[in-house]
Structures are given as C-alpha cells and as structure tokens.
C-alpha cells in the first residue's frame, strides 16, 4: 500500500508538471496574472509529491520490502542501513527518481526564493522547468519505474554491487546530480529570456547564483568521484578520461565558462548572445551526460541497439529540448542586441579568452568522448580514445588558460593595461621562478615539465593572492588598515581569489603526485619489510574480517620511520558472497598532504602476498584544491549583490545603442 502511494504521487506530480508547464506559459503570453501565479504553486507541489515518492522508495529499501522488484535487484536485508539508503540511487530506476527529485527541488527553490523576479519571467522560467520535469517523470513512469511489484516476492534480495557499497558512492551521485540538474535553472532562464525577447544585466544577476550553486555541487561531485576511484580501484589513479567521467566534466567546463561570461553580462551587458548560448549548452551537456550514462550506449553501440527503449526515450527528450532550444536561439538571438564596447586587453577581453579556451577544451572532450561511438555507428570501425589523446589535446589548452588566470582580475573593464597588470604580478612571477631555482638546486634536474608545472601552480596561487594584496595595499599601509580594507572588499572578490587559489592547489597536487610518485610491486611474506623513501613497512600478518554481506582478509602493516612506529595500515581483500564478487580495499595514510597507499594482490597458500605500495607526493592537494574552489564559489554566493532578495538595480531606461 505504501509503495502504491509513492507510485501514485509520481503520477500526480506528472499531471501537475503538465499543468505547470502550460497554464503559466499561456498566462505569460496573454499577460494573465492569475494564470502566471499558478507556476509557483505547481512547482512547490511537484517537489512535495516527488519527495513523498522518493521517501516511499527509501522506506521500501530500509524495511527490505522484497515485493518491490527494484529493492530485490539492488538490496539485501543484511546490508548496513547506510547502504540500504544509498542503494536507492545506486541503480538505474532509483537514480532517475533522484534526478527528478533534484530537478523539482530546484524548481521549488526558484518558486520560493525569487520574489523580486518579474512575474512574467518567473512564470516562464518555471514553465520551462515543468516541461523538463514532465518529460523525465514520464520517462520514470514508462521506462524505469522503481515501484513495480514482484509476485511472489522472494525471501532475499540480490544485494547491491559491492563497489557501490561505499560512503563515497553514497554521497557522490546526489552531489553530482545537484550540479548536473542545477544547470537546468540557467537553461530555463535562457529559454525564458529568448521567449520573452528581452535580456539585460539584471537577468545575469538572477542567473548567476543558480549557476554558481550548480557549479559548486558539480565541483564537489567530480572531486568526490575522483577520490572514490582513487581509493577504491586499488592502483592509485584518480582520473581516467573515462566517458562517464567526461560526461560530468563537460558540463563543469561549460558551467565554468558560463560563470565567467555571466560576469561580463552583468557588469557590462556584453556577450549577451554568447551567455545565452552557454546556458543552453551547459544543460544540453548535462542531458547528454545523463543519456551517455543511462542508455548503455557507452559499453558498446551494439549493447545499446539490443535494448534501446530507455536510450531512445532519453535521446528523444534530448532532441526535443536541445533541438527546441537551439531553434529558439537561432530565431531570437539576433534580436537581443549587443552590449558595451571593450578593447581586447581588458577584463572583458580576459574573460573572452577564458571562455574561448574553456569552450574549446570542452569541445575537445566532447569530440574525444563521442568520436569512437560515431565512428563505430557510421563505419563499424572500432577505435579507442583514451588518456594519451586527452593529455595531448586537452593539456596544451589548459596551459595558456592557467597562465592567464592571474591577469584577469588585474585588468580594468573596457580597456586594461597589461603592463601595469604584469608589474603587479611581478611578485607572483618571482615566487614561481624562485621555486624553479630551488627545485633545480635540490633535485638536480627532474623533468622540465614537472618543474614548469610546479612553477605554474605557484604562479596561480601567489597570483591569486596578489590581487587581494594589491587591493588591500598590503605592505604599503599599516596592517590594520590593510585588514580594514580587506574586510571591506566585496565577498565576490574574495571568492574569485579563493577559487583561483584553489586551481593552483589542484595543479600542484596533480604535478607533484605525477612527478614524485614511487611505486613498488613485490611479493611479501609475514615478517618481511619493504622500504619506501624514509619509511619502512613491515608485514605483520593476516586478520580475518567480515561485515554486512562480505567476508575477507586484511593484512596488517606497521609503518616505521627512523625506528619509530608512525602508523599501521590494513589493506583488505573482500569477497561479497551474494554477488560472488571479490574487491580490494586499499589502505591509505596521509602524511602532510602526501599519501602512502597500500593495496593487495593475490594471496598464496604459503602466505606470500602480492603487495603494491605507492608514495604519492602532495596527492591530497588535488581534492583539497577542489574544496578550496568550492569554498570560493560559496564565498561569492554569499556576496550581498547576489543574495536572493537583494534590491535589484534600477533598470536602465534607454538601452545602449548597438551599432
């Protein structure tokens, strides 16, 4: 009965989505205030209904209701509670329901927290949002319904894929979806602006917090996924250029570009058409990602062809929304008009460069991800596009972008002075060069590329701080005065600095962990030792382990440095009995920002065990940098100017003449 309530709530949400997509839209076109007001009500009601339905599915998982097919296929009564709950979205049907839940959550947030949005714009935005949720609710109900019953009900479930029984995987999908789906808001705003035929700086101001929110979640989600791969896969890699990763990385690149172009639009009313296009592209890439991951097209074009229902359904949604959006864009973009003028060397110019490189990089990832699929579908030829391709193409595009990052904030709007900007960055440049010299002196000549990378990271970090240093006149006035100035700076300025600093941190982690990475592969027996740098690991012996639905063995290592015990590590090998699937759990110890990483291979009958030991210098900075970037985003989000409810600026009565 409870399960049917969830099912019914979902149908009801679909009906409301249809109503919320048509009535306010009709009202907006006719100028009917009462019809437009329906938008907020339906948006909030949709959220409540889908939330109820999601709660019901979660309940079915928690109580292990094996009369529900979805629960049988993905759960087990002995599974720990956390993984029972995370199992709700650890499968296709449940994760699509989570997708829809987050979609309607964002709709409800827009409905509740944008009182100062013009009624017409709000009605249009929420209508577009309702169309999207109607399409996906239909998809869930028709092609991936999690509420289907099973009769007779089996006594036990088939358990969740062991690799998904992990804290990282419990929070990774919700974070990623908050990012993915959050992009729908800027898409809805873009479509509404195109329908309305009007767009201005205020529009950019309304869109930016939503984009920034989505971007923060996307950053966290991707970082989380990367860290999960790092500790779960057992060989220390953290990014694979796997199509699934690329599917989340493309919207991130586009959203990053969008964040920056929206600044230009907000401050200078320039790049309007481009910003609208980026907003459409970003969500299109999110939809594409959903299609790639959910349709099965990635495993092979043929696997897709044998069971195409779901894939084709999502493909249709994709075509309707992306095709429709681009048609509308083509028809209306010309009427939006141009904005303020600016010279190539200016803040705008720097942001155009940022957009150019980010978009080209995003397109490169797009081509690299989809080319093998297209080629196989068209010619039957199978090729692989892997990490070496992306290293060769994506990498070189990032270098000029990263070099340019510190310059951006130092350039004035309209017309900037690159020489003056360079002078203000002399300290950062000096710091980068000092690191190179120290590096050469300390380590002889490591690879030139590594040294360049480290210098680039320092340039980014010090360059980001230089901006705040300059604006607070650090060193030129008293510290108290600098402090006062710093406190008076807008939060968004701090946000920029922190986020740009974060990029430097991540770059440092990437370069250091790649260049100063040691790997030891050997066979050990209990009592034997292995030396990694200044640390000695002793294999003490085996410990049987068991928990939830697995049993296994862990190997206990003692780590000594200069004779003193500094850590013990216990990498594991598990066997999940229900799915008969072995997994390895690496043991990781963090020293400073560097990590010692131990994982197990085959264990022979005589106790000799294949062991892999890695030392990864500064590797934790990769993910710490992502956290810092997110913190920058959050800081910027808390800026008074962007706070939802902040008084909107007086609309310029006479628009700037275009040409």
């Amino acid at each position: 009965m409870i399960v049917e309530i969830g099912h019914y709530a979902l149908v009801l949400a679909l009906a409301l989505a249809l109503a919320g997509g048509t009535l306010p839209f009709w009202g907006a076109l006719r100028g009917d205030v009462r019809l437009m007001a329906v938008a907020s009500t339906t948006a909030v009601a949709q959220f409540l209904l889908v939330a109820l339905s999601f709660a019901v599915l979660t309940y079915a998982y928690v109580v292990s209701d094996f009369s529900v097919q979805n629960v049988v296929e993905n759960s087990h009564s002995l599974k720990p509670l956390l993984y029972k709950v995370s199992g709700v979205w650890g499968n296709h049907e449940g994760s699509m329901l989570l997708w829809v839940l987050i979609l309607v959550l964002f709709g409800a947030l827009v409905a509740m927290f944008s009182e100062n949005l013009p009624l017409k714009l709000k009605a249009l935005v929420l209508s577009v949002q309702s169309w999207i949720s109607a399409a996906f609710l239909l998809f869930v109900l028709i092609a991936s319904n999690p509420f289907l019953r099973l009769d007779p009900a089996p006594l036990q479930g088939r358990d969740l894929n062991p690799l998904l029984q992990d804290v990282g995987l419990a929070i990774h999908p919700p974070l990623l979806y908050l990012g993915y789906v959050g992009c729908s808001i800027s898409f809805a705003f873009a479509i509404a602006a195109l329908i309305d035929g009007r767009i201005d700086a205020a529009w950019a101001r309304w869109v930016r917090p939503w984009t920034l929110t989505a971007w923060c979640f996307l950053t966290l989600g991707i970082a989380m996924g990367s860290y999960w791969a790092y500790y779960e896969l057992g060989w220390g890699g953290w990014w694979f250029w796997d199509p699934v990763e690329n599917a989340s990385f493309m919207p991130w690149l586009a959203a990053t570009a969008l964040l920056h172009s929206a600044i230009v639009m907000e401050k200078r009313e320039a790049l309007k058409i481009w910003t609208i296009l980026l907003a459409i592209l970003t969500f299109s890439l999110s939809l594409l990602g959903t299609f790639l991951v959910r349709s099965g097209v990635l495993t092979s074009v043929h696997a897709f062809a044998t069971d195409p229902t779901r894939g084709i359904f999502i493909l249709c949604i994709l075509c309707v929304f992306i095709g429709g959006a681009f048609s509308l864009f083509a028809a209306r973009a010309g009427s939006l008009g141009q904005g303020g003028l600016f010279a190539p060397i200016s803040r705008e110019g720097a942001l155009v460069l940022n957009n150019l490189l980010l978009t080209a990089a995003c397109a490169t990832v797009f081509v690299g991800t989809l080319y093998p699929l297209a080629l196989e579908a068209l010619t039957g030829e199978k090729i692989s596009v892997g990490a070496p391709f992306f290293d060769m193409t994506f990498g070189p595009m990032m270098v000029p972008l990263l070099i340019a990052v510190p310059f951006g904030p130092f350039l004035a709007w309209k017309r900037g002075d690159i020489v003056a900007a360079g002078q203000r960055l002399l300290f950062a440049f000096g710091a980068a060069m000092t690191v190179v010299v120290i590096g050469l002196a300390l380590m002889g000549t490591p690879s030139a590329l590594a040294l360049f990378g480290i210098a680039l990271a320092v340039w980014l970090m010090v360059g980001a701080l230089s901006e705040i240093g300059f604006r607070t006149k650090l060193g030129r006035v008293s510290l108290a005065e600098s402090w006062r100035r710093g406190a008076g700076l807008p939060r968004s300025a701090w946000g920029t600095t922190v986020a740009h600093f974060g990029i430097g941190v991540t770059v440092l982690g990437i370069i250091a962990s790649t260049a100063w990475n040691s790997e030891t592969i050997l066979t050990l027996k209990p009592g034997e030792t292995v030396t990694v740098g200044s640390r000695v690991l002793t294999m003490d012996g085996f410990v049987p382990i068991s928990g939830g639905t697995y049993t296994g063995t862990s190997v206990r290592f003692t780590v000594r440095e200069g004779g003193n015990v500094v850590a013990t590590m216990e990498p594991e090998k598990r066997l999940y009995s229900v799915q008969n699937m072995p997994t390895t759990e690496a043991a990781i110890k963090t020293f400073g920002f560097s990590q010692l990483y131990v994982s197990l291979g085959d264990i022979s009958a005589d106790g000799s065990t294949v062991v892999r030991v890695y030392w990864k210098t500064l590797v934790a900075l990769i993910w710490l940098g992502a956290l810092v970037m997110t913190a920058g985003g959050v800081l910027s989000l808390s800026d008074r100017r962007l706070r939802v409810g902040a008084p909107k600026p007086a609309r310029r009565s006479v628009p700037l003449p275009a040409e």
Partner: protein
Amino acid sequence: MRRLMLMLGLILSALPAFAVQPGEILKDPALEARARALSVELRCLVCQSQSIDDSDATIAHDLRVLVRERLQAGDSDEAVKAFLVDRYGEYVLLRPRLTWHTIVLWGAPPALLLVGGVLAFGLFRRRRATAATELTQDEQARVEALLAREE
C-alpha cells in the same frame, strides 16, 4: 542481472584493478620502463577504458607479457604497437593513429580553437570599427546641448 552487469560495466570495468604483477617485471630497468610506457598506451580490450597497465584482467596480463616479450626480442616501440594492431586492430591503441578515419578527431581541437579565435578576433575588430566612428559636428552639438540640460 543484465542490467546489473551493464551498470557495472558503466561505472568501471568489472573487477578491482590490480595491474602489473611482480613476476612480470623485467630485469633490465630501461626495458621495463619502456614496457610500462607502452602499456599505458594500450587498451585492456575487455575493460571499459583502462590501459593494460591498470587492469588485472587476464587479457591485460597476457598483453603485458607479450609486450615485454617483443621488447626483449629487440622490437622498437612502434614495432610492438604495429604487432598488436595487426592482431587486435586499432581498438587496442588508446591514442588513435592519425589516419583518414581519425582526421576529424585529431583535427577538431586545433580547428575549434582556431575558429573560436577568429570569431573572438572578429568581435573586437567589429567593435573597434564601431567605436572609431566619430560623431558628426551636428551630433556633437546635440550631445553637448543635452549634457548642458542635464546639469
């Protein structure tokens, strides 16, 4: 179950990776380094997108051993790749070779950058042309009149 397998394949290739085994490592460190560098560029044929260096699948093990055998026999890196492509097709290479099949793939990134650059450049040129248009005397007079009235 099929759905489960599919998902599994999607999230990562089936088993936890545990690549190079101690027994595989060559005595000659230079040769071993070349083998590792080559392995990174070769695809584990049954995996989602792992190189044979990262994968513990049986085929990856076989390929790693094969690569080392060829290297010990004195093959150049290119010869080893060619040998594997002969056996398994272009699919085995993670960095596709430049052929007419892949010309779009390799050409796209620079082409896109170039087109984007030209478009951005055009943006500035057009704008500069606009900015350079000076006011006629008549317009100048009107502007001044308007400004005077504002004050």
